[in-house]
């Protein structure tokens, strides 16, 4: 009869051990986002006495990876934090999220549940969620939905679509990369050959080849968004092949950035600002600023338009920004070329012709 207690106590001790470490850390200010999160949870619990204030605008977002992935999901999370601050905190703008919803089916359940709970805007931040949205949105005609990255609203009046013209930033990165490469070999690491990653990679290639036709851009797809070890070894392979500039898309590239730093090879980031990962070798990152799109959608929703429009982040509308690493000494002429390329894309003098789809 003693044994069940032994088990319980054993596992209790085990989990206590781990969780006590966890508390130690939450006391540190490191996780600022977490603090915000906790406050929010507290806020929700005491939502009743806030009657006097105007109803906050409520947003729910479903994301495929973690909010701290230094890539796709983080870019949206940061945008939401930014909008929240701009709109005056959680009283005016309240948002909740479900992260790591890589199971499409679970995401669908989450989207439906958020809609049932009466959120003003439900964002499905992943192109794999579109199909689910197409099913769900018609059942909640008073709720606004948004999804990306795509331009397709399915013709449903309460769906917004958003995407990033990641080929534009890819092109600029490619131009700078080609100018900086001395070996004339550039390596690219991508997850699977589709979607946002493919756009970025194609744009990057076109940009690099336009700058220097002799440049050789080789691409390595790892077939996974999470295989850090394979991404790292892909970087090593590029370097061994003579590449002196690397870039890549998706959250597994953190492994590749480390290898680039070790071998003192330059890196270009995309989706989020990746400078902090390797301050000595990151030249520039294409950063998505979804906040503009978010604010536009909120404005439309408040004015009574619940969807039917699509938005594209571009360099021209400020949704995409090339953020340079201040610690990297970019030669003036290259910086000038980069700026003029950005300007050219904005005013239309540079058009990016992507290779035809298969």
């Amino acid at each position: 009869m003693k044994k069940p207690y032994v088990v319980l106590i054993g596992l209790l001790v085990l989990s206590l051990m781990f969780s006590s470490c966890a508390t130690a850390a939450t006391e540190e200010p490191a996780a600022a986002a977490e603090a915000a999160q906790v406050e929010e949870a507290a806020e929700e619990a005491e939502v009743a006495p806030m009657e006097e204030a105007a109803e906050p605008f409520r947003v729910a977002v479903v994301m495929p990876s973690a909010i701290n992935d230094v890539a796709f999901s983080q870019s949206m999370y940061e945008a939401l934090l930014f909008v929240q601050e701009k709109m005056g905190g959680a009283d005016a703008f309240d948002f909740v999220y479900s992260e790591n919803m890589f199971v499409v089916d679970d995401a669908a359940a989450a989207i439906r549940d958020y809609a049932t709970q009466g959120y003003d805007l439900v964002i499905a931040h992943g192109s794999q969620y579109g199909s689910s949205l197409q099913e769900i949105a018609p059942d909640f005609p008073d709720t606004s939905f948004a999804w990306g990255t795509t331009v397709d609203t399915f013709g449903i009046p309460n769906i917004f679509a958003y995407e990033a013209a990641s080929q534009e930033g890819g092109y600029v990165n490619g131009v700078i990369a080609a100018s900086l490469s001395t070996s004339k070999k550039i390596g690219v690491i991508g997850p699977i050959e589709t979607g946002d990653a493919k756009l970025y990679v194609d744009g990057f290639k076109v940009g690099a080849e336009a700058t220097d036709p002799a440049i050789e851009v080789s691409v390595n797809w790892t077939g996974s968004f999470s295989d850090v070890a394979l991404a790292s070894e892909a970087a090593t392979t590029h370097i061994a092949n003579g590449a002196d500039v690397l870039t890549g898309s998706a959250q597994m590239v953190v492994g590749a950035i480390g290898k680039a730093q070790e071998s003192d090879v330059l890196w270009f980031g995309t989706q989020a600002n990746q400078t902090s990962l390797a301050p000595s070798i990151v030249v520039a990152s294409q950063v998505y600023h979804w906040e503009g799109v978010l604010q536009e959608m909120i404005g439309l929703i408040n004015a009574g338009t619940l969807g039917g429009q699509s938005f594209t982040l571009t360099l021209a509308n400020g949704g995409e920004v090339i953020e340079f690493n201040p610690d990297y000494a970019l030669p003036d002429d290259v910086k000038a070329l980069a700026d003029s390329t950005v300007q050219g894309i904005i005013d239309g003098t540079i058009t990016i012709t992507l290779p035809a789809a298969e």
Partner: protein
Amino acid sequence: MISDLFSTTVIIGIISSGIRLATPYLYASLGETFSQRSGVLNLGVEGQMLMGAFAAFYVALKFGSLWGGVLAAILVGAVFGLAMAFVSNNLHAAQGISGIGFYLFGLGMSNLLFQKMIGTVETVQGFPKIYIPFLSDIPGIGEIFFSHNILVYIAFFLVPVAWFVLNKTTLGLKIRAVGENPDAADSLGVSVIRVRYFTVIFGGVMSALGGASLSIALLNVFQQNMTSGLGFIAVALVYFGGWRPWGILGGALLFSMVNSLQLWIQVLGIPIPSEIALMMPYILTILVLVVSTSKVRGPSALSKPFERGD
């Protein structure tokens, strides 16, 4: 373009990156060999690797001590191994399934701790490459064999050690006896439970070290689910190697080198779809086993809980 594959750069690249990629497999597979040889199937390797990777990374990041990180991984691996040993030895839990439980727990826990204690993706200065005067300078050979970090060397050094312990020591004899015929071993006075506690804890420690070899020696970063299936491949390699350390070395090197070959195929722009290239290591591993005619049999008592006088 295919002929590019046979240049010295590529061959050296394939072998040296094969050695690096094989490292985490070696740790985890050797550990798993010990527990399977004693009759315990541990499918929780992946979870243990993640916990080890996190523990090592955390200590390296916050306290700046790489060996402290290794120690932390060993401790965490031992705790996980202890829990697995308790569940499978004392509670006779179905081992395949409790392993899946530990995998899920490790997957979630490592990520939870990462979010709460570190918060964002950061990098550490991991174990540096060891430069051996003269040897490291030999063209080709130097890059293949003498340009790795300490945890890589330890992994390869552990292969003969594991072989020796399993085949030439009393401990090894006990382990094999317990895995083949626990009742007989028991009647000869070997404590089946104690041996299995040892092997499963050792397996946990080795898996955690495999994780640490990723987070503080090879990749120098921690990210949620960073092993992404490595631990399951490590279990598969135990079968590939026929529960023998040298066979596991062969399997780990084969799998890793073919993986690195497919990276080169892509980098050199050889026109086959990337997905087909990515399938290669998996297909070849199976094919090699098909054509090799070895008839190894697993430990008879594998995944059967021991009950005295049953």
